[in-house]
């Protein structure tokens, strides 16, 4: 199953410690495990742009800027056998310790 991992900040989490950040180890493990892996860090919400089309009119706005201190800081798309494996992989991501990871399954093709 394909899962999207939203790597999020969490204002209640312990302060980020760069010395404990082993993201390279995590990425290497994930790539070794599933072969295919696609993910990256994201620029903060202050660099977001929102696009809408209403009645044929294009609307472009800056933001939305995060109103809460929780925002998506990165993403990974990983193929896992099941939710338990996805939870296991997420639990080893450094941001599980300094933020939180939301796991969502992709909508499967019927």
């Amino acid at each position, binding site marked *: 199953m394909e899962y999207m991992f939203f790597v999020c900040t969490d204002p209640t989490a312990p302060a980020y410690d760069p010395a404990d950040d082993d993201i390279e180890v995590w990425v290497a493990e994930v790539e070794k495990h599933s072969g295919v892996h696609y993910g990256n860090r994201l620029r903060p919400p202050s660099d977001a742009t929102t696009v809408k089309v209403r009645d044929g009119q294009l609307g472009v706005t800056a933001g939305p800027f995060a109103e809460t201190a929780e925002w998506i800081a990165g993403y990974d798309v990983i193929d*896992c*056998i*099941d*939710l*338990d494996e996805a*939870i296991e992989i997420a639990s080893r991501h450094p941001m599980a310790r300094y933020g939180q990871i939301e796991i969502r*399954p992709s909508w499967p093709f019927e």
Partner: protein
Amino acid sequence: MTSRVRPDPIAEVAARAAAGESARIVSTLIRMTGDFTLAEDCLQDALTKAMTEWRKSGVPTNPGAWLTTVAKNRAIDLLRRASAESRAIQRLAHEPVEPEGEEVGVDSDDRLTLIFTCCHPALSMDARVALTLRTVAGLSTAEIARLFLVTESTMEKRLVRTRARIKNTGIPYRVPAPEHLSARRDGVLAVLYLLFTAGYRATSGDTMLRRPLLEEAIGLARVLVELMPDDPEARGLLALMLLQHSRSAARVDAAGELVTLEQQDRGLWDADATTEGLSLVTRSTPNAGRYELQARIAACHAEAIDAEHTDFARIVTLYDELGTVAPSPVVELNRAVAVAMHRGPSAGLAVLDGIDAAGTLDGHHLLAATRAELLRRLGRRAEAAREYERARALAPTEAERRYLERRLTEVTR
């Protein structure tokens, strides 16, 4: 004109077979198909078919095996129709269609797998409880709805959503890997204990409606101990349930009034449940878990001939340990009661002051009721009366309000 309802023997045999076997049958089908909803639908179809077939040609020697085979063939049929390419069908290719009535082997591991799936931490507690009762205990949706005081359609929707969530999120159908087993087992035990406490509280409340929950919870804990015989926490939970349950008959007097542990007629305690519970309790293994420790506390009460001869020194020590393993304001409150019994009411009040300072049980009737009780023992009647009044105002059930009312009358007399 009203017609008398006559018992339908065929329906009764089918219902009994379903109640006893549904967990086995459904778990076999889920293992085969990987699909919760499909598995339960197929069992329902098999039951429907049983009603016509058994009326025509008699009840088979082994109704459970008959239902399993018919449900299994139905699953294969449905899957073949749905998609010849699906992964499930590839798995099924190795499972030949069996002639109806033939014995189907189901190992007990299937039920364990089912319990772990129903109690997966990615499901909400409500969802876990409902699905466990439906799929593992084999209760009907209507029965579960009655237990939780919701309509049948609400419960049906909850179950449908839960099964869909299992499928959509990819919750696996298997026993967790050894390194995760103890954490996941705790989740299962929490569901069973919640069922039990819901049933236990209700027996003292306004309604006897939830009493079956007690028996279901004990039955499921028994299954868990049978499946994980070396697990100390599973044994501890079963022991705890049995020892608490053994006092049921003594908790309420003939007039329906609550009787405290101290004043219960110990002759009314269920001796069989006590004996079985005590046989499961370990005495002093180090690093005991929360259920084992609570079982040991319950064992101290079960072994005492009366309240006066209870080993409260040991109970205090056990509550100290429990407070380290599973700290909670309710544990602290119980520790206060044990301290009061062991070293006197003033020492107990000092523990209550600590709980007050933390503010974790503000507005809880048991905190006020306990304080009232200790003040009464110290002869501080006016203060006791104030606390009984507060507790009465906060008490959630009619039986508890009546009990506190009686105590209040005693100190204001």
